[in-house]
Each structure stands twice: as structure tokens, then as C-alpha cells.
């Protein structure tokens, strides 16, 4: 299903997961303020082996294996960030971020606003389903943080963006949650530039230009949208696919521009529907682009349930190519 966008490059192909490792490695080499903190990230190299070899390379003062305590870890990262370091926290699974919710929303997000203390830190959150993880190893928690002023949120869909956005996040003066999609870890590959680059936070990308309908999406769903676009093309439905890449701050200009062109929009996300990011984008479209809308804004998203475990249930739960197709056909006929 997955084919990554090709970028001009010199290096050999790396997976999405390797791209993340590379970003961490390069940033740690570039800037000695950068350090890693989390559970099992040292000798073990992390649950997904993203930091394999880092302990040996950077030592146990920069690769910090912690007790099992997400709130304590995030709190510690906040303190270290305020003292001038650049912590990168690894959540073992994004699902466990709920344990650190208070630290993230009440401390990290509000410190600068309240008393001018910058908190330059990154929380890496391996998120998303399709991996038979069940309710507690498949969650998409971005919706909660989308409604927490003071945080930046990014969610790359390709190895190129995975690397470039992580570097940008580490260099950002604010707390950034970096949502890395577990499903993509080893399923997509791309050759990356050998020189240092970042993908700027706050910039969406038109992944596929099209004229009939704009599909606004992010994360693993970008690939679903592209696949749906390929299928619909033969029927003359020409999807424009926008990969948000950054969720906060939202690149409304790119979204609006696309909708001004196509007049029709589908918002696609793997997160549950009610109160998800799609709601905000739909609301923005009707607020800001009402006159150019030529049909309802449709959302394709997971139903309002936890992520179920069993294969047929999880398949039903996750937005599928056919769901996008169906919405697109409906909207095209509108």
C-alpha cells in the first residue's frame, strides 16, 4: 500500500524509522544540549530500537534510561529544558502520554505564557493503529493536545518529513509533540538528502495536486489518500492530497488555497471523529471559505470508540481507501 514520495537525494534508502534515528543522531552530534530521556531507550535501544547504539555513542549522561514514570519523565524534561538543554522524550507508546497529560498541558504548555520560561523540548509519541495493538497500543492522542494552547504538534508521513520535522522540532524553542506513526516505521522507505535539512514546522505539503476535491490529512492516512486518489483517477475524480505535516500551528493558507481551487473538501484522519482535528479544519473552512465551498465538508475518521483489538474490528475501525473513495464519489456527485 505504501509508497513514499521521492525527494531529490544522494543517500541510500532508509525507512521512516531509520529517518527518525538519523535525525536524533545528527541533532545530538550537532548540538550537545540535545539529550534523550525515556524508558528502555539505553542499552535496549527503545521498544522500537530507534535509539539502538545511542547509549554507546553518547553515554549515559545524554541517553537517560528512567524509571517507569511518564509524568516524572516529562516533568524532568521540562526542568532540563528550562535550564537550557534540549530534551527529547520517548514515550514507549503514544498511549501512555495520558500519564503525563498534566505535565504537558499544565506545565510545559503554559510556562512561557505564564512567566516567560521557554520549554524547548520534544516528546516523541509512537502513535496509531494497524499493528494489532488493541485499545492501549494504537491510540491517536493528538486531538487532546490540539486543544491545548502552547504546544506545537507535528506528524510526519514520510521518511523525509520524519527526519526534517524531528530536526525542526528539536530546534524549536517550544514544547513539540512529535507523532510518529508506528505503522509506517518499517513499511516505507526513501532516499534522503545527505546534507542537513529541516522541514519547517507549520508548513503543509500538497502531496498530489488535483482539481476535483481536496483531501486534507496527515500521518499514515496520507498514504490512504494517495491510494484512493490513484483509484479514483480512472473515474475522472482528481483528488488533491494535502499532507498537513504540522497540526499546530496549522498551515491554513495551504488548506484554503487548495479549497479555493477545488471547492470541495474531505478531511481524513485516523483519530476518532468527534472533536478531532477534522472538526477544526471543517469549522475553519466554513468560517473562512464559506463562499468557495461547493458542497459539504466531509470527514472520514475512525468511529467514536476505543481502538478495538481483534483483526476484523480493527479493520472496520480504521479509515480505509474505500471510505475515502466513497466520500469522494459522494462529494463529486454533489
Amino acid at each position: 500500500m505504501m509508497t513514499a514520495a521521492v525527494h531529490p537525494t544522494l543517500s541510500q534508502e532508509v525507512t521512516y524509522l531509520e529517518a527518525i534515528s538519523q535525525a536524533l543522531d545528527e541533532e545530538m552530534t550537532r548540538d550537545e544540549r540535545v539529550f534523550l530521556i525515556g524508558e528502555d531507550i539505553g542499552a535496549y535501544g527503545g521498544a522500537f530500537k530507534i535509539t539502538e547504539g545511542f547509549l554507546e555513542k553518547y553515554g549515559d549522561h545524554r541517553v537517560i534510561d528512567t524509571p517507569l514514570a511518564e509524568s516524572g519523565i516529562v516533568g524532568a524534561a521540562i526542568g532540563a529544558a528550562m535550564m537550557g538543554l534540549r530534551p527529547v522524550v520517548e514515550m514507549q507508546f503514544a498511549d501512555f502520554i495520558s500519564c503525563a497529560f498534566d505535565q504537558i498541558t499544565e506545565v510545559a504548555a503554559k510556562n512561557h505564557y505564564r512567566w516567560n520560561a521557554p520549554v524547548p523540548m520534544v516528546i516523541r509519541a509512537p502513535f496509531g493503529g494497524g499493528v494489532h495493538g488493541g485499545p492501549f497500543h494504537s491510540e491517536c492522542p493528538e486531538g487532546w493536545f490540539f486543544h491545548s494552547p502552547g504546544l506545537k504538534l507535528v506528524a510526519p508521513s514520510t521518511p523525509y518529513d520524519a527526519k526534517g520535522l524531528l530536526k525542526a522540532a528539536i530546534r524549536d524553542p517550544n514544547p513539540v509533540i512529535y507523532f510518529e506513526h508506528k505503522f509506517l516505521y518499517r513499511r516505507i522507505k526513501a532516499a534522503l538528502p545527505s546534507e542537513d535539512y529541516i522541514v519547517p514546522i507549520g508548513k503543509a505539503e500538497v502531496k498530489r495536486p488535483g482539481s476535483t476535491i481536496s483531501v486534507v490529512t496527515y500521518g499514515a492516512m496520507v498514504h490512504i489518500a494517495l491510494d484512493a486518489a490513484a483509484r479514483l483517477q480512472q473515474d475522472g475524480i482528481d483528488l488533491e492530497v494535502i499532507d498537513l505535516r504540522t497540526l499546530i500551528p496549522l498551515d491554513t493558507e495551504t488548506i484554503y488555497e487548495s479549497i479555493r481551487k477545488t471547492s470541495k473538501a474531505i478531511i481524513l484522519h485516523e483519530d476518532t471523529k468527534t472533536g478531532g482535528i477534522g472538526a477544526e479544519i471543517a469549522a475553519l473552512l466554513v468560517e473562512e471559505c464559506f463562499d468557495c465551498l461547493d458542497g459539504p465538508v466531509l470527514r472520514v475518521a475512525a468511529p467514536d470508540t476505543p481502538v478495538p483489538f481483534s483483526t476484523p474490528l480493527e479493520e472496520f475501525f480504521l479509515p480505509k481507501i474505500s471510505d475515502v473513495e466513497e466520500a469522494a464519489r459522494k462529494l463529486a456527485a454533489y
Partner: protein
Amino acid sequence: MDLSRIAGEVTRTDYLHLYYYLRLTRGLETRITALYRQGRIVGGCYTSHGMEAVSVGYALPLESRDVIAPYHRDMGAFLIRGITPGEVIAQYLGKRTGPTKGKDGNVHIGDLKRGVIGFVSHLADNLPVATGAALAFQIRGEPRVVVTNTGDGGTSRGDFHEAMNLAAVRKLPVVFFCNNNQYAYSTPLRYQMAVQDVADRAKAYGMPAEILDGNDVAAIYVAARRAIQKARAGGGPTFLECKTMRMHGHSEHDPAKYVPQALLEEWKIKDPILKAEAMLKALGYADEADFQDIDARAKKEIEAGVEWAEQSPLPEGPETLEGVFATEEEVA
């Protein structure tokens, strides 16, 4: 525990029960691991290999109206509470006949009717929940007890602290077990805490604590029984640390290279089943032939369960949408 004490405290029937559940647990988890290797299991696979004595020991003294809030290495407790091997396999296969109907998997088994509070991945989350169940019993003046368990790693979470504290302040009828298997995933105990014994953590709450040989099922059974009786009688909570060793990886995909081989060797000879057999023989409670009978009985049950589970239907897609909310009837 020494022989004469055991003889006085554990009847032959009880010990054979304990032994049976040790074998059933070992057999079932070995079978699950085999299925996992064959790629027939959905998702991950967490076992209690080498630590079976903990949950077998704590669950057997419970009465039927008592409640457990187990963690992810408590297969023995599930079985003792009446979750069948077939149901466990069905759960692992995502079948509709599993206790969670395919909504959740593997060791996330819960069933209020059988007094099993479903495990939540977020470690230690169920400890406050366990205290709350105990609070309900206290409020209603019911002589019921909750037993809960956590790993050594889980004790580092804030919810452990908040639960222990509330239980101690209100003298709730809850017994906290800790399966100290020396690792939390790859993290050895010394990176987890600066105390030698997890039991030291109970001091922060004024809660009595005991350290047990986590591979001695009879010792655990006896200590659990005592703590449960105490809790039932209004004597408040107890913390019981079981020192044992995780003999497999964190989950079956993990080769656990970070565990020194010598440590595994050392603990291999302390295997809880071998230990129980030695004791049973020394006590004159059973001999090799009995062990083989019991094992055969366990295996039969397991195979019947595998067959049943494999023939069970998967749930259908739209069932995804069911059950987000409870109905009036369910709580009437």
C-alpha cells in the same frame, strides 16, 4: 518456608491445587508461546514463565466474592478465578468468545462476574481502582477483599503511590502484591529504584510489608491467606513483595539479551514447579506419577481449550460500534 511449617499450613489438597494451577499456567502459556511462534496469535504475548507461583499463590486463598485486579503476568490468577484456558486462547486469537469479545486482547481479561478487574496497559492504573473496589466493600461493610498485583517497574508510577496511600489511610481491605522479577522490560531494578527491596516502598505509607520467595507457591499462598484474612477482618492492607525472575523476554518477541545469562541459570534451578514438586515429595503429598497425572489433566484441558477457541467465531466488523456506553439494565 521450611517443611514443618508448610505441613502445618498447607493441606495436601491445597498444595495439589496449587500445583495443578502451576502446571495449567505453565502449560497454557507454553502453548500460547508456541502459537505465537507460529504466527497464529494476534498482537503481543506476555507470559509469566518462571513466575507462575505469584498469581497462583495469591489467587487460591480468595473466596468467590473477592476480587482481583491483576497485572500482565497473572495467568494463574485468571485460571483460578475460572477463566478457562479456552477463553484465554480465544482472547489471544481475538475471538468473540474471549472474555472481551475481541475488543481487547491477550492478558487484558476482565469479568466482573468472576471478580476479575480487567487489566489496563498503563501500569499501576489499576491500583487505585483496586483500592476503590476495596472502598466499596468497606462502605457496605462486606467481608470482601481485593488482591492486586504490580511489577517492580509499576511501583515507580504515581498511581502506585496514590493507591498505597489511600489504602493505608483508610485501612482498606486490599492486599498489594508485587511481582519483583528484577526487570521492567529492559530496565534492571537498580535503575528503577534506589532501595534494595521493593517492600521498602511500603514504609512511606505505614503499610506492613513482607518479602517472599516468589518461586515458592506455598509460601506465597500462606502469606496471601494471612494478609487476606487480616484485610477481611478490618486489619487493613498489606504489601507483599515476591522476589522472582522473568525467565522469558518482556514479551515473546523480546530475546532479552540484556539479562545476564548467569542470572537466568541461577533462577532456572529455582523454578517454581520444580520447587513445588520437591516440596510435595518431601511432604509425602505426591510423587512423580501424581505430577504426570496432573500435567496430563492440565494438558488435556488446554488442548480442549485451543480447539474450542480456534473453532470460535471472530467478531464482525460492525461490532466495533457496540458497547461504548453501558445500558440501564446492566447496572440495575
